[in-house]
């Protein structure tokens, strides 16, 4: 391109969002951010789903007091914006002598939120399993726990997979909230770099990083949904 | 005639001078309600209808029979352009349906259709099902539409079920509501695609009874069905289709009593036993 030409809208656009020198300079920090985002995401997905599954299994025993506690906890976590909980915990706990790192707070809260949604989804799967399945299994001498684990859950899991995938994706995207409390994930790196560089290229890099991570996941979620829809039909 | 000139000026192909039909054909009592000529239909590369010719005269009940996959449903669905024909001509009361200027919604109002699976709107009551097109297509005021809907439901013996949702009705009642839904629009022709095939045997009679009443009232009907006994008793003509063509047609006594074609004989011996 001829340097002498006056800048066009297009070159201004490129300069603002895709400036090569800025990309070069800040690529390492964005990559660091990606690693942090993936770490938090992996920990949240694993812990959140396991905790949610555990809560749903516990709920299946229908111990009244325990179930009321689970329902209240789950309801609250579903009703509260995660950012509100993050701020309460992050700013409140140190003053009562509990110091958690910002990384730990982000992980803890997102795990709890995912667990709450996962519990509801697993529970819906358990209750959707026909009564006859319980009766058939119990009639062959299987115990309650055996029936739950070997007969009911395998069937429940199938119908929970599509909604669980979608919910997991949505909550994993909340790792971006970490930026508010200074977790050095993608968005945090991108905004810091943007203010240093005086140029929006790092923000664009951050957005692209999220697309690279999440578009395959979203597409996978969509594929799962159609696949399971076919099976049902 | 002016309309045709307007077309020519815009350089539209005059391949189907169909408005002529609308203008020039005087509707005599002998004009067929349905006049199908050279109708073909392809899905991709498979030709499902290979040139169908059929006339249905006013007040006639024509019965279409034939093996599964022979194209009966496709033929019927072409007659109100739910399926877009590949080629040919379909005139309903003298109006060419395949003209590109035809107001297909206005024509569909004049062609009632009853489906195998009823297709009632589950979120509306029986009356609501019947009223919808009266209100939105015929633009009737609410009170009048309501009265017409109730009259149509009364004709199929369901005056007392007008406020029920489809889920609260038996299959036979649902199908009669579907008939009322078509009937309320005062169609000149009614198409039935296996109206009793989804019904329990004991409910078939009520629907056939409704169709019998329609026939007695002078409705013109084209019916695809496997109810051979009903065909023998009520049909004016029976058409046997196979492989996308009409193999033979004639009065029920001839088709059932002395079929001319081997294919017809083979089909009838299979279904009648």
């Amino acid at each position: 391109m001829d340097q002498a030409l006056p800048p066009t809208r297009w070159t201004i656009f490129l300069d603002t969002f895709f400036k090569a020198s800025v990309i070069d300079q800040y690529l390492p920090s964005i990559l660091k951010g990606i690693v942090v985002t993936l770490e938090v995401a992996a920990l949240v997905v694993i812990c959140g789903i396991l905790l949610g599954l555990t809560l749903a299994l516990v709920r299946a025993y229908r111990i009244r007091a325990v179930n009321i506690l689970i329902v209240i906890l789950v309801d609250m976590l579903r009703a509260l914006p995660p950012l509100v909980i993050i701020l309460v915990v992050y700013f409140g706990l140190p003053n009562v002598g509990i110091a958690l790192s910002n990384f730990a707070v982000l992980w803890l809260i997102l795990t709890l939120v995912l667990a709450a949604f996962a519990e509801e989804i697993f529970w819906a799967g358990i209750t959707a399993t026909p009564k006859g399945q319980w009766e058939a299994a119990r009639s062959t001498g299987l115990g309650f726990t055996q029936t739950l684990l070997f007969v009911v859950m395998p069937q429940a899991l199938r119908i929970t997979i599509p909604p669980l995938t979608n919910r997991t994706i949505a909550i994993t995207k909340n790792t971006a909230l970490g930026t508010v409390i200074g977790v050095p994930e993608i968005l945090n790196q991108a905004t810091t770099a943007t203010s240093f560089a005086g140029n929006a290229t790092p923000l664009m890099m951050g957005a692209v990083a999220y697309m690279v991570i999440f578009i395959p996941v979203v597409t996978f979620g969509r594929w799962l949904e159609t696949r399971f829809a076919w099976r049902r039909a | 005639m002016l309309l045709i000139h307007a077309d020519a000026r815009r350089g539209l192909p005059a391949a189907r001078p169909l408005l002529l039909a609308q203008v020039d054909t005087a509707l005599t009592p002998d004009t067929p309600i349905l006049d199908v000529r050279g109708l073909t239909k392809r899905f991709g590369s498979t030709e499902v209808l290979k040139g169908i010719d059929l006339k249905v005269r006013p007040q006639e009940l024509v019965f279409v029979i034939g093996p599964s996959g022979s194209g009966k449903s496709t033929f019927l669905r072409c007659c109100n352009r739910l399926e877009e024909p590949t080629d040919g001509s379909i005139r309903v009361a003298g109006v060419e349906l395949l003209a590109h200027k035809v107001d297909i919604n206005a024509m569909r109002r004049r062609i009632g259709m009853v489906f195998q699976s009823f297709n009632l709107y589950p979120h509306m009551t029986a009356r609501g099902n019947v009223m919808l097109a009266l209100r939105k297509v015929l633009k009737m005021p609410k009170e009048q539409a309501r009265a017409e809907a109730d009259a149509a439901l009364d004709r199929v013996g369901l005056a007392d079920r007008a406020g029920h949702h489809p889920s609260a009705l038996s299959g036979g009642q649902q199908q009669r509501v579907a008939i009322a839904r078509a009937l309320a629009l005062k169609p000149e022709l009614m198409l039935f695609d296996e109206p009793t095939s989804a019904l329990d045997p004991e409910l078939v009679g009520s629907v056939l009874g409704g169709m019998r009443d329609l026939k007695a009232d002078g409705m013109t009907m084209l019916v695809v069905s496997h109810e051979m006994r009903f065909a023998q008793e009520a049909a004016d003509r029976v058409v046997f289709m196979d492989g996308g063509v009409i193999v033979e047609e004639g009065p029920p006594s001839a088709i059932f009593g002395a079929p001319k074609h081997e294919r017809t004989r083979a089909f009838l011996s299979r279904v009648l036993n």
Partner: protein
Amino acid sequence: MDQLLDQFFNLSIMQQVFPLLVKGLWMTLKVCAIVIPVGAFAGLVVALCATSQSRLARILTVPYVDLFRAVPPLVLLIFIHSGLPFAGISLSPFQSVTLAFLLNNSAFYGEIYRAGLESIGAGQREAARSTGLTALQTNIYVVIPQAVRNVLPDLLSNTIEVVKLTSLASVVALPELLYSADMARSITFNASPLVLAAAFYLVLLWPVVRLLSRLERRVAA
């Protein structure tokens, strides 16, 4: 224990900041009043495109929906609020928030409506068209009402998410509920304003969450 109460449930501080938070709540509700109805309508349009006869419309909606489902709403918001000014487009916090959430929202509502529209068999459309209704009338009176009813729990669930989403507006200094609460926290050095804000959200959303649980159970049964 006293320390805990003082830090999280300090009644005198709560009383003090209450009017400020109510003002913030109004702003939250204002954002919701725009973003929810407009987003829900835009989502319906997206879904009608995604399921339309037109190949072009179908092909165009996929990247739109996937893009805004993949990018976290906070990233989108910050991009619009702090990125666009570099290109000479400066939006007020309120404008940034509504734009970001509408884009995000229409994609999510769109996916839900699409599932709903796809759950309606072709027979319903055919029956309606056979009585002379136009394609538009068929959508309005026959298909959409059934589609919406089939995905009502998902629509409601997404609406809860949208209300929660508005808390992100605090990041771009829109004085909504969370922003007001966090400002109060930084002045009082106490988490009670945040807890009070949480209480506001609970009052607003808990009944809806309960209703949703019920709806979900009814649909499953």
